[in-house]
């Protein structure tokens, strides 16, 4: 039954999958980063289809806008080049990939076997800021505060880890 919902879903889904596969196929990390940005944008579209506007917005702003920028900056900073072809681990290929395949097949079988005709309506989720706010600052206040502390710690950790050793010495002498 071809509805607008389905067409849009398939369109965004195709972009997601294409971007994911491209991430694997590219050799230069910057290309992989750009593919990942495309995936995230398409996912934001999927969220909109489901009615989660707030999540979609946050996805674009935080994920695609901040985290991926961080990735790109790092690639620039480290001057990452094309991936070298080194002799890696046989285990990863021999054991990991089959494991992955088996896991995926099993999950797919479960999903397709189990699910019936439950359908998701377009935009079914009430994603208005009022409800979100209520949940975030009333029901889930503690996790909210804890994650803010987490971010603070992450910032401090990142600064210390990434700074030059002499810089730390200078700071200590002050």
């Amino acid at each position, binding site marked *: 039954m071809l509805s607008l919902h389905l067409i849009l879903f398939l369109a965004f889904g195709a972009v997601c999958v294409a971007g994911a596969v491209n*991430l694997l196929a590219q050799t230069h990390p910057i290309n992989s980063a750009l593919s990942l940005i495309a995936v995230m944008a398409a996912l934001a579209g999927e969220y909109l289809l489901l009615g989660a506007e707030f999540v979609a917005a946050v996805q674009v702003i935080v994920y695609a806008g901040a*985290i991926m920028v961080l990735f790109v900056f790092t690639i620039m900073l480290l001057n990452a080049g094309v991936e070298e072809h080194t002799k890696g681990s046989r285990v*990863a290929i021999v054991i990991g990939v089959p494991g992955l395949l088996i896991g995926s097949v099993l999950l*797919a079988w479960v999903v397709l076997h189990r699910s019936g005709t439950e359908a*998701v309506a377009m935009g079914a989720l009430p994603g208005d800021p009022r409800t979100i706010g209520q949940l975030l600052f009333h029901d889930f206040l503690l996790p909210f505060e804890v994650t803010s502390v987490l971010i603070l710690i*992450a910032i401090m950790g990142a600064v210390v880890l990434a700074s030059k050793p002499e810089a730390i010495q200078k700071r200590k002498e002050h």
Partner: protein
Amino acid sequence: MVPLSYYLVLSGILFACGVAGFLIKRNIITIFMSIELMLNGVNLSFVAFAVHWHALAGQIFVFFVMVVAAAEAAVGLAIIIAVYRTRETLNVDQVNLLKL
């Protein structure tokens, strides 16, 4: 009307691509990006189930996942920079001192 299972399959595909990237790729930054891909796939399934069960908490969970992913990305990239300083390489196969 899209059945729930379609969303779950899409989420699964994204997750599988993430795992495959982790296993196949050699550049540490690319591996990190595969991790982000995995997290995104999971986020999608969270939202899909939130719609299915009419539980708005699913969205909030996605929010927190994103926050943690951000923190993790920041710290992880800082570590990569620190390791690059001493090892001069971004190839994960050459950073193998944690062994017997």
